[in-house]
Structures are given as C-alpha cells and as structure tokens.
C-alpha cells in the first residue's frame, strides 16, 4: 500500500473534457468518472435532464506532487464554472505490492 492523495471533483458534464485535457497536460493518467450526478451549491440545483446540465463526480488518486498540480489547474475552472474539489488522504492498494 502506498499513501496517495484522493481528489474528488464535482463539475458540470460539459466541463469534463476541459478537466481531462488539464490532467493530460499534467501527466495524470488515472481517473474515475461517475456521470449523471445531481446536486446543489452556490449556483442552485443541478440535475440531469434533457438539457444535459448535470454534474459528474470525478475521483483521482495520485501522489502529492501531482495533486498540487491538479489543484492549481482545476482552481480557475472551478472559479469560472462552479463545482467543488475535495482532497483527502488514502492508501492505494497497488496491483503489484
């Protein structure tokens, strides 16, 4: 097991492509996406409808250095489009250890 940062991001589905291209730039390969999430925040209620303005929940496990880069990259997006980003500690059960 390896200590990692667990980054949890909630953003609008339409912003997803943007965030992934930031991850690519930073060199973070792995992430998990749960689509069709709803929620409420400063910008009111959001839910999956035919307008497709739902949220996605993205989870990224990465080392501390990468986490810092991800946070820096995500901050302006959150500022502009809303959403949240939580960071916590976790142990990663690595495949080969």
């Amino acid at each position: 097991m390896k200590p990692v940062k667990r980054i949890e991001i909630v953003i609008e589905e339409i912003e997803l492509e943007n965030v992934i291209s930031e991850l690519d730039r930073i060199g973070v390969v792995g992430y998990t996406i749960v689509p069709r999430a709803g929620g409420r925040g400063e910008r009111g209620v959001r839910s999956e409808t035919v307008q497709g303005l739902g949220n996605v929940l993205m989870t990224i496990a990465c080392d501390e250095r990468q986490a810092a880069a991800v946070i820096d990259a995500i901050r302006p997006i959150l500022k502009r489009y809303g959403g949240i980003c939580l960071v916590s500690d976790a142990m990663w059960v690595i495949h080969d250890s």
Partner: protein
Amino acid sequence: MFSLSNMLIPAILFFALGFLAQLIRSDLKFPPDLAKALSIYLLVAIGLHGGIELAKIDAAGALSAVAAALGLGFGLPVIAYAILVWAVRLDRLNAAAISAHYGSVSAGTFVTAIAFLDSLKVSHESYPVIMLAIMESPAIIIGLVLANMARKGQGNGHQKRVSRELVHDAFTNGSVVLLLGSMLLGAIAQPAALDKIMPFYDMMFMGVLSLFLLDMGMEAARRIGDFRKVGPSLLVFGVTMPLVGAAVGLATGHWLLGFGVGGTLLVAVLAASASYIAVPPAMRLAVPEASPALFLTLSLGVTFPFNVIVGIPLYFWAAQRLAG
C-alpha cells in the same frame, strides 16, 4: 378567434397533464434517458420528413428559406438583447445568454404546431423544417459575440479557446447534426428503401410527441419555483418576446417567403420559440457568468408553455388573417 376545441389536441393536453402532475407534486418522473431518446427520435423524424419533401422542391425556394432563417437567427437575439438591456435593465452577460435562446428555436414547440395544423387539416410548406435546422447555429454564435462584447477586452487566452470551441459547437451540436443529417438522408436515400423505415417515423410520431410533451410539461412546471428569482420584468419579457418574435416571423413567412397559412404559422413559431435543449449547454459554456436559473426558467418555464397553450392558436389566427 379560435374555439376551445383547438386546445383539445392531445399534444397540448399531454403537456398540460405533465404540468399538472408536477403542480400537484406527483412523484411521476420520466427517466432522463427516456426524454433524450424521445428527442432523438423526434429530431430524426422531423429531419427525414423535411428531407423527403425537400427532394421534391426547387432550390430557389430553399435558398430564400435559408436566407430568412439566417436573418431571423442573427436578428432576433439582437432585438432580445436590446429589450433586455434597455427595457428590462438586465446585466449584459445574462442578457447575452438569454438572447441566444430566443434566436434559436424549440423543436418541441415546432412539432406541437405541426400537430396543431394536422388536427385542423391545414397543410404547410416544407421549407420551415430547413429553417428549424439552420436557426440553432447563428443564435449560438451571436450569443457568444454579444457576451464577448459585454466583457470587452477581458477576453484572455481561455476566452479565445472557448470561443473557438463554441463556433465549432454551433455547427456540430447534436440537434443540428441530427436535423441536418437526417434531412440530407431523407433527400438522397433510395425512396423504396426509405419506405421501409418511414412507418417507424410516421406512425409513431404523434404518439412519441405526446410522451415527450408530457415530460416537458413536468420540466416546465418544475421551473415555477424559480419564478421569484426571475422577477416580474423578466417574466413579462418571457411572454412579450415570443409575441415580438411571432410578429417578425409572421411578416417573414407571409411577405418575405410568401407562404400559406400553415407555413406562415410555422415561421412565426420558429421566431417566437426559445431553445431549451441545444442552447442552454452552449450558453453555460460561453457565458458561465450567466445564471441558468434565468435562461432555463424563461425558455422552458415561461415561453414554452405560453407558446404551446396561448401562442400557437394566436399566431394561427394571425396567420389566417394575413394569408388565409
């Protein structure tokens, strides 16, 4: 003017049923994917029908319809923006986002209008379908331009990238691709082979529309809670802008394009209706500063029900007086 029985077409009744179900706080809910599936079906069906008709008509007529659609698509948002900024005194970014919705069209309203004409056995030209497919794009672009003007000079690198994306999006968003693609398909496919697929798109059409409007009725009523946020002057905008649009559309359909009653009504509906499927995500991207509660409540909660219940019969009456 128009009898009550005009209102009793199933399309409108289903919308009302959905609206009512939500008002009495029923737990009735459509799976979100069902609404998406229904709207895919409706767009393809509209496109195919349009395409089959287009294969029969002359290019000149099509060209002037395209020109009119571009004119409406670029012109209506400017009118809406002017009203919003000077009369409603809304901030420019929200005004830009809302304007784009009114330049574009609501396929659901358009199809309801077709159901309305059908129920009265009034025929219509097929050009309005092309206009439907075309009017999405200019509205998105003009919305972007207005927002960029409102921000003037603030456009940074990020902004430019978003703009590029959005112009791309304006021509490739799902509704546009489905409408234009299936229209082309309907125009070039072997007629004999098309006959095999058309029962699916013909016989089910009004039925699928009934379910779609049932869901849209619920969606519209869900927005009522946001009426307070929108405020009285914007609510007034939500019913006057369709009237302004309809007037422009009636004039365009009758005088510019020389359509009959049916075609004129459809052009009025194109102009009077506001998008609530393709434009909201585009404006969310283009103008994140704008509040979705405003533009969605106006287009889906105010203008859509207004057009379906009051607007269509009213515009029809006007079209009859003009072209009848």
